[in-house]
């Protein structure tokens, strides 16, 4: 009997050793991808930077620090075709809502430093027009000031109004143009679409140049939801 027990013990330890070795061998052979969001969004990093800080390319915007609700809305809009840019539409086509929300949360919580503003390429008069439209709007044409929705410090408002700083002039200009022509749209009422359609080419150049000339905000965090009342209703913001 004792021998049988011994034998069983031997087999058990042999078996145990075998399995431990097997497990060890598997670990050693197969290095896994890091289980982090940063590793998962490497598909985004080539154009938007590892932390969403943006790159030198004028048309790939900074993502970090924008309100999570805004980023989530954009991811949904790209996936579902409300916002058209084929490379983005393609990358997001088969990603579920819950994951897009996590991607939005990741970039919203990142705080990489801002790059210094690029040199201004427009004349003083144009820059001045930009400043007026951004800070005061144009009541005669019913154009609201940018700051009336995007906040006095232009860092946006939770949950879904984006900040306007740290973006390249060409990007801002392209987006306002896209809204004017309908290749960028959002859930109705499409407030930004309404505003963009009131702007002419010169306005857009001026606004883009002025915003891109501003230095990084000292506190880039979007203001809390409901901090101020917006002049028009937006479908992307659930009031």
């Amino acid at each position, binding site marked *: 009997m004792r021998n049988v027990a011994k034998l069983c013990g031997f087999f058990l330890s042999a078996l145990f050793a075998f399995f431990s070795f097997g497990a060890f061998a598997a670990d050693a052979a197969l290095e896994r991808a890091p289980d982090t969001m940063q590793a*998962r969004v*490497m*598909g985004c990093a080539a154009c938007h930077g590892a932390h969403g800080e943006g790159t030198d390319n004028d048309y790939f915007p900074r993502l970090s620090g924008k309100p999570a609700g805004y980023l989530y809305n954009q991811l949904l809009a790209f996936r579902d*075709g409300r916002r058209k840019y084929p490379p983005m539409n393609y990358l997001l086509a088969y990603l579920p809502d819950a994951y897009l929300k996590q991607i939005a949360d990741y970039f919203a919580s990142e705080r990489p430093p801002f790059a210094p503003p690029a040199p201004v390429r427009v004349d003083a008069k144009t820059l001045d027009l930009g400043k007026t439209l951004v800070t005061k709007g144009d009541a005669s044409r019913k154009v609201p000031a940018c700051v009336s929705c995007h906040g006095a410090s232009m860092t946006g408002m939770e949950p879904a109004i984006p900040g306007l700083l740290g973006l390249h002039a060409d990007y801002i200009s392209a987006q306002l143009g896209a809204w004017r022509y309908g290749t960028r749209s959002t859930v109705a009422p499409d407030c930004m679409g309404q505003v963009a359609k009131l702007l002419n080419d010169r306005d857009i150049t001026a606004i883009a140049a002025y915003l891109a000339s501003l230095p990084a905000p000292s506190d880039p965090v979007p203001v809390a939801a409901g901090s101020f009342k917006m002049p028009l209703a937006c479908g992307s913001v659930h009031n």
Partner: protein
Amino acid sequence: MLRFRHFRALTVAVFLAACAVPIEHAVAQGADAATVKRGEYLARAGDCIACHTLPAGKTFGGGRPMDTPFGTLYTPNISSDKDTGIGKWTAEEFYTMMHTGKSRDGSLLYPAMPFTSYTNVTRADSDAIYAFLMSTPAVHQPNRPHELRFPFNHRELLLGWRSLFFREGVYKPDASQSVEWNRGAYLVEGLGHCSMCHTAINALGGNVKSKAFEGGLIPIQNWYAPSLTSNKEAGLGDWSLDDIVGLLHAGVSNRGAVYGPMAEVVYDSLQYLTEEDVRAMAVYLKALPARSGDKSPPPSQAVAEEKTSLSPLGKKIYDAQCAECHAAQGQGKPPDFPPLANNQSIEMNSAVNPIRMVLNGGYPPGTFKNPKPYGMPPFAQSLSDVEVAAVVTYIRTAWGNHGAPVTVKEVNELRSAPLY
């Protein structure tokens, strides 16, 4: 993306005339909840939703454009709506359409509707799908007429096409094979309609039976649907069942991930099947004869020179941009960062897929088993044609891979391939 899947063949049912005929007894009254549920599952296996629903549109409302070499087809509304959907159809009429490729009014369907596969579906399964479709909300959305060029806008031509490429008949189980193999065969050859992409089509838009599952280029969308035969070099012969199941069910495996049109198939269809059904499909696929339509000719001198001239630059780019994820020896960090060494998708005769992955990047689908997939960045914006050709040549020929070098011209042409 997958909206393009069925472009390969001329398409889709025009149900227009049919819907105008006032017959009232069509609704599947009395279909029990279990049948509806089974129908929903089978509709997933058939991936009806991918073609018959616009992205973010109303389910089964149709209207999805499909560019084919013959013009653009618009998928019809298959919701339960009586005026614009199939709400007036009977289960019998639905089965006739699935089985014979003829619509309710007798008109011939364009073969973008995969009736050459669906003909294998049993009457009971067809009835369950019908009961499910009848249980879905009615979507009032009139069908959009197809925009086909002459002579393809003449349905009479389909008679000739059908005599060449269509054999009507329900799937007959093979008693010499296991129950699992038969289940897999039924799904692959029937609702799964895998041959639509994985069997090459000829100039007439028909599948060539002798080349079944040997792979082929999907026209217009410009992705290569790889061989599914058990051929060791090009097909699945060298894959374990678990890896095939992983690929089809989760979208990732230790051998590679799905991307391009196959990502949509997994996202909309395969992830919803039971693992048993997916395993049965894997068993069937792995048992396909080991034919290969993908044998490369020995490299010419010009090709060999291309490799010699491009590879050093390719290695430099690989080490700087790719090795972090795919590892120094191309072994990857599976399943999330796929291996490139000994990967058919990289080595196969057609270099379309590896070139496009480098240009466009891609995320595998988010699935129940892999809800947070890792993504490959696009490099179209940062690498030149020469650099892309160099790095793809490198990964196709390094670490014992035996793919052929790619040319700068091939890369340049694929820059304009449709993305979405």
